[in-house]
């Protein structure tokens, strides 16, 4: 029984057009068949003689069932179901999809739960297993105290390096929760100290003339630009010039080499209410003192208002810190990760010093330098500071902003 129509599954023999014993040509109609879609005459598949009509008129059989036998011309009478059609469709091969079945892996607890029943994420489960960490023993820093993947990693790696910070006893007083900013600062400070071997050196700088220049220029500056003129832009300007003479101070250490930076992008360590940020004045080498003052002022203002964006905070190559504003005369700052040096301006103090074999009262400012000892040796560092000192001491009211 042929399949007449795509969705057809059976057919009815309505009328035989040939009797047993009659000859039939190839393609000659030999039977009329009807389905629910169509009634049609079926052409013979071979030329020969009708031998047997298997299905009676009016009978319904499924498609593929034999309905008649025709002895083909030139062959012996072999009982074969000549009326059956060839299968039309190949069986579909299993589709090669990218459905990778992920193997279920053993977990720390039932259904990935910790001992106290909270659920853990797939990453936590996997990392805990890989690092042999007991999830239940880790305190979580995630939402609602969730143990995060970072907590597991910290628990796993922190143990071998530095002791975990002691947990403050609740009874002893206030416990200040860590803000994300505080956490980030902590992380970066640790990273810096653990990566770069810090060395430290300092010089005293006679800023009497520089101070005089600043005092003479600040009122006009404020009138013209509506912003304060501090010593910071002068300092940054001098630092920039010294960095060009000592490019190693303006570089980064990598395993495959020390990268000297083309530009001087000066970060200014700035404290806000609850945060420490380091906005960057880019391309300081192209700017005048006035230009640096305006750029730095704008950045510090944005920092205080919490409006810094990504361009403001990235790309720094060296950092300065105006520590002296609070009165400190010496400090040992921590490098910004990836930089080779950080220089501070300490407080300007009037002190008696010896000049030309006489005692003079001069405005003295210490400049402190922390440096990455992988990159910079004492000689370079001292040379840099000496150069910086010379420039700062040469600045005076006759200079141009």
């Amino acid at each position, binding site marked *: 029984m042929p399949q007449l129509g795509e969705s057809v599954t059976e057919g009815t023999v309505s009328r035989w057009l040939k009797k047993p014993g009659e000859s039939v040509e190839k393609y000659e109609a030999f039977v009329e068949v009807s389905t629910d879609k169509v009634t049609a005459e079926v052409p013979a598949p071979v030329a020969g003689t009708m031998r047997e009509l298997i299905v009676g008129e009016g009978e319904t059989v499924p498609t593929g069932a034999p309905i008649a036998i025709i002895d083909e011309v030139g062959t012996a009478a072999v009982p074969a179901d000549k009326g059956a059609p060839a299968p039309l469709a190949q069986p579909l091969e299993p589709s090669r999809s990218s459905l990778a079945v992920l193997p279920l892996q053993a977990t720390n607890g039932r259904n990935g739960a910790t001992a106290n029943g909270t659920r853990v994420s*797939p990453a936590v489960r996997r990392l805990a297993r890989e690092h042999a960490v007991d999830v239940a023993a880790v305190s979580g820093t995630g939402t609602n105290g969730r143990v995060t993947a970072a907590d597991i990693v910290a628990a796993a790696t922190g143990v071998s390096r530095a002791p975990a910070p002691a947990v403050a006893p609740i009874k002893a007083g206030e416990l200040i929760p860590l803000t994300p900013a505080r956490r980030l600062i902590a992380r970066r400070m640790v990273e810096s100290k653990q990566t770069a071997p810090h060395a430290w050196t300092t010089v005293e700088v006679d800023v009497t003339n520089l101070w005089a220049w600043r005092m003479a220029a600040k009122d006009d500056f404020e009138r013209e630009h509506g912003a304060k003129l501090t010593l910071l832009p002068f300092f940054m300007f001098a630092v920039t010039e010294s960095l060009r003479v000592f490019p190693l101070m303006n570089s980064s250490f990598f395993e495959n080499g020390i990268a000297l930076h083309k530009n001087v992008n000066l970060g200014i360590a700035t404290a806000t209410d609850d945060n420490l940020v380091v906005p960057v004045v880019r391309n300081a080498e192209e700017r005048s003192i006035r230009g640096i003052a305006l750029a730095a002022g704008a950045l510090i203002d944005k920092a205080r208002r919490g409006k810094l964006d990504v361009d403001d905070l990235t790309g720094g190559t060296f950092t300065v810190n105006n520590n002296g504003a609070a009165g400190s005369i010496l400090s040992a700052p921590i490098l910004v990760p990836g930089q080779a040096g950080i220089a501070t301006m300490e407080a300007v103090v009037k002190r008696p010093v010896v000049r030309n074999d006489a005692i003079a009262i001069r405005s003295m400012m210490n400049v402190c330098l922390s440096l990455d000892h992988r990159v910079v040796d004492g000689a370079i560092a001292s040379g840099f500071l000496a150069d910086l000192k010379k420039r700062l001491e040469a600045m005076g009211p006759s200079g141009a902003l």
Partner: protein
Amino acid sequence: MAAERAQQHLAEDLWSDASSEGRPHEVGGAQPGAERLSNLDAVRLALHEAMVADERVLIVGEDVGARGNVFLITRGFLEEFGAKRVVDMPLAEASIIGIAVGMAMQGLRPIAEIQFADFIYPAFNQIVGEAAKTRYRSNGDYSCPLVIRTPYGGGIHGALSHSVSIEALFYHVPGLKIVAPSTPRDIKGLLTAAIEDPDPVLFLEHKKTYRSVKGEVPEGHFTIPIGKADVKRTGTQATVVSYGYNLHQALDAAAQLETEGISIEVIDLRSIRPMDKTAILTSVRKTRKLLIIHEDNKFGGIGAEISAMVSEEAFFDLDAPIRRLCGPDVPAMGYAQPLEEAFMISTERMRAAMRELAQF
């Protein structure tokens, strides 16, 4: 008449540079031999360059000739290249695409424009049933190197028929490629790549970014491979995948979060079909958290496919459920300001979602 006035009003709105969030968004750093262009300029530049370089390239669409396109993208093209190559088509989207399909099958390189993505539906069969299938149904005998350009997206008071996103309707279709670049450099490189591609490419331009996004574009001919995403900002605590106007908002939100000490990685998808699996998985394996942001409706949007793929392939790297921040499941954004704002995703909402995910 009213429709014409509506078009004019829309175009002027875009002229005014006023994004609801403030100043134009600058992207990219200074490079020698680069020009600073808007997204719209980048489209124009790529079209112009292709028209000059390849005689087979022609532009067909409504109002592309004498008017120079309702956003003035092809202003001057008619005078420069002639009416044979800059064809003002009758108002019939199905045949804008159908005729372009015939041109492409016969060896030309037509760039067909649908004036607003909201008008593309009459051409659906020509795109999905004809262009996408030409190579496959002819077993490689014919191909259809056609580019269909259309502005999409909201936030410009376009209301129900000038604001929709259509990528989810088409990215399902094998045989079609879809790109949605968000910056001038990416637009220039990807539009050139689309024009040179031997298969049909649907090129989506977010109209709110036409003039409000500017950036550097290298001079001269260059292409960006279709299918590759771009990490526009590196970070460590969560991965955000986005495109279009949302991408710029996501970058702003991530920058603001940096000052809170939260580090977010932002991937600009750029290409919707094919999509960059490696970029997404590499990032998710690093940050372990994924947030997909798209303006299009949430249900059945492309975020669903990304989510499924990531959960299939990076399940054991996930430290949080995959999140989607998307448009609401309503037919389109209303004309009234509060309705439009409620549909569009604000930068504040993005910041909150990123913060929540990073802290999870």
